């Protein structure tokens, strides 16, 4: 079987599994079937990876989907090392998560629905990964959105947090900054989809720019294929124009458009607020969303389109990533919801990847970012699975203030999650060390090379990394370290069932930077900045980690609440972080209520008028008030006609004398007028 065929199979097998699973009523059967198919896909992806990694990329089959004469839109696959490895990761993690989910949802009556939505999601992501053109990427990109929509809304009938007594009882002390009235799976899925769509609008403009650019430069056929885009005659750029930009600026515009899509999918500021809400879905769904699909898509897409990104666009990418990295990290530091910490951690790590991407290809930014994407995928997937296990074990409690000491009750989960966490922090010997180091290295190299503002992303990334070490250790220590805090919450806890444990244990080694593991499969950047970057990374880890161990481990062990003291000392900052810097509220007010509902209400009112008017349309007794609206104007026109008619009718009041007088009078006037003419 050729690599091309394999790639198609890898992409479509999960889709087929999704279709089949919709017809399966039994949850166990569906999970089993889907897991087997995904495992097969993993194996196929692995063969593919062995074939292409280190070798030449393979162009798979390509079909023309639509032929528009001057250009075509196609469907096809393209497998290079990045795609193959990503496909393996997606399939492998998906298999693992699905097996884990079989246990996780063993008592959920809706569980049979999970596998097909999950497979659809995975398949869509594989489409993004393996696509050979930007159009197909966009399509699958959107389907990824659909998958996330379905999975986040898995428990679509759960009430909003504000109306949910169970949530209110469990939420703990510090669930602040969250809009509880809109915190439910149903709201979260909507928010995720619509915010992604904001990015997609930009993405479409980016595609449009590239389309216009290609056609104006004389390209024909499947102009949106990556091969064609890479081969655009950049020298002729000045001939093309789009949205008033031409030449280089046009390329920047196109790149920024694509990046806009990535900002949405990868939850970068300012479109990051959907991701924490997406925690409303099943934890297993979060696990795959945060690891290998959805959020990874953004980073992957930018990497895929990397040749198109000029330095100006990369600077925006880097700065956005750096800012998001720090912003999310500050928020993660003070979250009390165990999943929220992980969510903001993801946002922060994604920011880090964008910092890497922003460093530019000269510094090896793409390789660094992709490496971190891969390593992060495993660690974050494991962390979420562990979080799921904890939540499951503690009857839905996820308040860091009430958990504690669980390492004794659920050792497997505790140590697997510790491994994943250390990988995330970039501890030497763990995979994250390699990738995070690479990112800091390229950022530093870029900063050194470009100077000035290019230092920004590096500094921000360093600050974010510093905080990462602190808040992730805080997370682990609060859950697994120390002593039991709330007996009611934790006394039932135990490790999950064998199958789930097996998943955790099988995935855990992937977080290590051992020979032949994923961290060594990638072409990592090498350069002069390697050593300073490594030193910086280790220093950051030591300071951040040390701080956390001191505050949440040692100090707490000795009964001192250093954390509270610090919080009081830095009260304004602490409060702002706790309130998510007010961004959720502001966006809600500005976009959902203002630009969305507010403008909509005005438009609707301007269009049809007030409710009162609408209620009285057919009631002659109710005066059709001339409500200033488009429809009111139409009725006003009609009323004006009727007014003209009324004045005409006022001559017809039944008086014969008037009739005769008017008639004779008009005839007389005509007579005089015409008589003059004769």
């Amino acid at each position, binding site marked *: 079987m050729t690599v091309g065929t394999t790639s198609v199979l890898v992409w479509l097998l999960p889709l087929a599994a999704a279709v089949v699973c919709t017809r399966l009523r039994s949850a166990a059967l569906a999970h089993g079937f889907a897991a087997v198919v995904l495992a097969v896909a993993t194996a196929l992806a692995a063969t593919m990876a062995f074939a292409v990694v280190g070798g030449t990329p393979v162009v798979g089959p390509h079909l023309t*989907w*639509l*032929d*528009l*004469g*001057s*250009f075509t*839109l196609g469907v096809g696959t393209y497998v290079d090392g990045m795609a193959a490895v990503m496909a393996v990761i997606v399939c492998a993690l998906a298999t693992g998560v699905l097996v884990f989910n079989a246990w996780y949802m063993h008592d959920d009556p809706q569980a049979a629905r999970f596998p097909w939505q999950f497979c659809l999601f995975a398949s869509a992501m594989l489409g993004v990964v393996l696509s050979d053109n930007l159009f197909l990427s*966009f*399509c*699958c990109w*959107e*389907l990824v959105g*659909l998958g996330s*929509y379905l999975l986040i*809304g898995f428990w*679509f*009938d*759960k*009430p*909003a947090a504000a*109306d949910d007594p169970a949530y209110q009882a469990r939420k703990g002390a510090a669930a602040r900054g969250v809009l509880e009235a809109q915190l*439910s*799976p*149903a*709201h979260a*899925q*909507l928010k995720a*989809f*619509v915010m992604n*769509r*904001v990015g*997609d*609008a*930009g993405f*479409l*403009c980016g*595609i*449009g*720019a590239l*389309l*216009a650019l290609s056609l104006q430069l004389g390209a024909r056929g499947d102009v949106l294929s990556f091969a064609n885009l890479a081969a655009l005659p950049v020298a002729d750029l000045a001939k093309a124009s*789009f*949205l*008033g930009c031409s030449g280089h600026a046009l390329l920047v515009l196109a790149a920024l458009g694509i990046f806009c899509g990535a900002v949405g999918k990868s939850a970068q500021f300012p479109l990051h607020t959907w991701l924490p809400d997406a925690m409303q879905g099943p934890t297993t769904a979060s696990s795959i969303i945060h690891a290998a699909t959805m959020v990874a898509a953004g980073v992957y897409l930018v990497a895929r389109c990397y040749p198109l990104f000029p330095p100006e666009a990369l600077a925006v990418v880097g700065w956005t990533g750096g800012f998001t990295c720090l912003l999310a990290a500050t928020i993660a530091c003070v979250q009390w919801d165990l999943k929220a910490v992980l969510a903001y951690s993801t946002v922060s790590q994604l920011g880090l990847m964008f910092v890497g991407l922003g460093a530019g290809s000269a510094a090896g930014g793409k390789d660094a970012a992709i490496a971190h994407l891969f390593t992060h995928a495993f660690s974050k997937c494991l962390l979420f699975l562990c979080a799921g296990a904890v939540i499951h074990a503690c009857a839905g409690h996820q308040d860091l203030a009430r958990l504690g000491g669980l390492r004794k009750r659920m050792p497997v989960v505790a140590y697997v999650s510790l491994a994943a966490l250390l990988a995330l922090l970039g501890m030497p010997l763990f995979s994250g060390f390699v990738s995070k180091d690479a990112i800091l290295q390229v950022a530093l190299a870029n900063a050194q090379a470009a100077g000035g503002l290019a230092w920004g992303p590096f500094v921000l990334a360093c600050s974010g990394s510093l905080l990462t070490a602190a808040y992730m250790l805080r997370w682990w220590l609060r859950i697994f370290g120390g002593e039991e805090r709330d007996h009611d919450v934790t006394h039932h806890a135990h490790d999950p069932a064998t199958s789930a444990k097996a998943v955790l244990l099988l995935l855990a080694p992937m977080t290590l930077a051992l020979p032949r593991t994923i961290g060594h499969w990638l072409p990592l950047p090498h350069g002069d900045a390697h050593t300073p970057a490594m030193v910086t990374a280790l220093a950051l880890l030591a300071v951040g980690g040390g701080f956390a161990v001191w505050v949440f481990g040692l100090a707490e062990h000795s009964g001192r609440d250093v954390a509270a003291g610090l919080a009081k000392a830095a009260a304004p900052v602490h409060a702002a972080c706790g309130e998510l810097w007010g961004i959720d509220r502001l966006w809600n007010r500005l976009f959902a209520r203002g630009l*969305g*509902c507010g*403008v*909509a209400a*005005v*438009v*609707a*009112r301007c*269009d*049809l008028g007030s409710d009162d008017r609408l209620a009285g*349309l*057919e009631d002659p007794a109710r005066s059709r008030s001339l409500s200033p609206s*488009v*429809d009111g104007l*139409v009725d006003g026109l009609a009323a004006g006609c009727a007014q003209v008619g009324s004045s005409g009718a006022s001559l017809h009041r039944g008086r014969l004398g008037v009739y005769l007088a008017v008639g004779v009078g008009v005839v007389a006037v005509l007579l005089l007028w015409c008589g003059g003419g004769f």
Partner: protein
Amino acid sequence: MGPLTACIVAPLALAAATSVAPPRAARWLALLGALLTLLVGGMAIADFAARPGADFRFVDSTPWSTAFGASFTFGVDGIGAAMLCLSGLITAIATIAAWQQDKWPRVYHALVLVLLAAMNGVFTSLDLLLFYVSWEMVLLPMLPLVGVFGGEQRRYAAMKFFVYTLAGSVLMLAMLIALWNATPREGRSVVVPHHVVAAHADASHGTLHGLPIDLGHDGPKQVHVPRGFDLRHLALQAEHWQGANFLGVTLAAFGFFAVLLACLVKIPAIPLHTWLPHAHVQAPTAVSVLLAGVLLKLGVYGLYRIGVPLFPQAAAAWAPALGGLGLAGILWGAWAALGQRDLKRLVAYSSVSHMGFCLLGLFSGTVAGATGGMVQAFTHGLSSGLLFLLVGVVYDRAHHRRVDGFGGLARPMPQFAWILLLGAMAGAGLPALAGFPGEFLVLGGAFTATGSFPWLGALATLSVVLSAAYLLWTLLRVAYGPLRHPEQAAFPDLDGRERLAAWPLAVLLVVVGLWPGPLVDALRPACELVVQTLQGGRP
């Protein structure tokens, strides 16, 4: 009698037959008429997909008036085939949706059949007078379908719909007559543009649109066009309309304005759209399905078939403004939909928004845009038809349509919720569903067009945000979350009839979304010709 003539005659004959049929049998007659249309339309579209071409096929002519040169000439190109197919399909669905019509079933189904005949007449006639007659004839059955069978404010809605659309199209009558008057009695010789020769000339018979033409030489090809109303012949004389005078303006400018006005009202484009929410809200479910599914397409079709081919210069001159109007409709409609609290009105405004794409696409003057506009017209018929059906489903159960009067229906009515999700996603333009190809092609067309169109396209991308917002927010409020009205726990899920109406549309949404190739292949050559004509009109 050819198949296309049968598509007009058969529904009329069946409508007459309802008067002698038993009341319960009328619906079968309506279904029969619709399926016949669907069959012919499907056949035609398959033919065009198999052998792409911009020529008119299945041409079929019966003399009407020798004095005026009018005839009952029917024929379809890819555009007509697609629309005919849509007309049959949606009418069949609407008939199934109204299967239990218990108020005057015979009258109701007879009216639907007359409506079907009129719609088919618009989509297939190649004679401008016949086109106009069919165009106006659509109003006749619609008046009672809304006014008699509709809801609370049906009288207001029906009258407004009727007079608004009638007023919109009166000028078209003047245009028709002026065109006829501007042709010499003995006809005239015209030079045929090359792309028209390429698309339409019949080399084996040496004819073009039924007129003898000498294809033997390399020079400019000439035909002698008789006086009459044959659309194809009128289009050949576009230069002359540009030269003729109509009360101080060129005949082309007046003619285009007349067609434009009629079509903009029908489409409907803002600010001429306000009849639509009333008509939709008051019409019975099945009529709403027909209205959104087919009737709105009449306007789009009119621009493709009459407006641009007959008056390319005027169309080209107006194109940027009309593209802007399309954009304005897209955004205004989307925002208005977001602000609605009545489900039907919401879907109605979504139609306003979606139909804006057709305008934007056509006037972008690109093949992708024009094809996309037509694809959008077709697929919007499917998705909005489905959404109206589903609104009807909840209305039948709850007897109201307030968005805030529902909540959590996915629990008692899972199948309803899934199909609603499908319809909403299709409406939101999700790839792999039917709403996507049209929107993408229109945007692609706008992006690659000249002038201000890329800006219009860029702004139109906002609709992907807004459409997701208003459709999925509606879904959230209706289907998701906890059950907000306990009595709705007992709502039954879709019954057999409702499934029969909804599933074909749902399946088609997926099929067309995944595989729009045949549709696009059938549409593209015809749209390409329209675009060439439009571009030929540019100074």
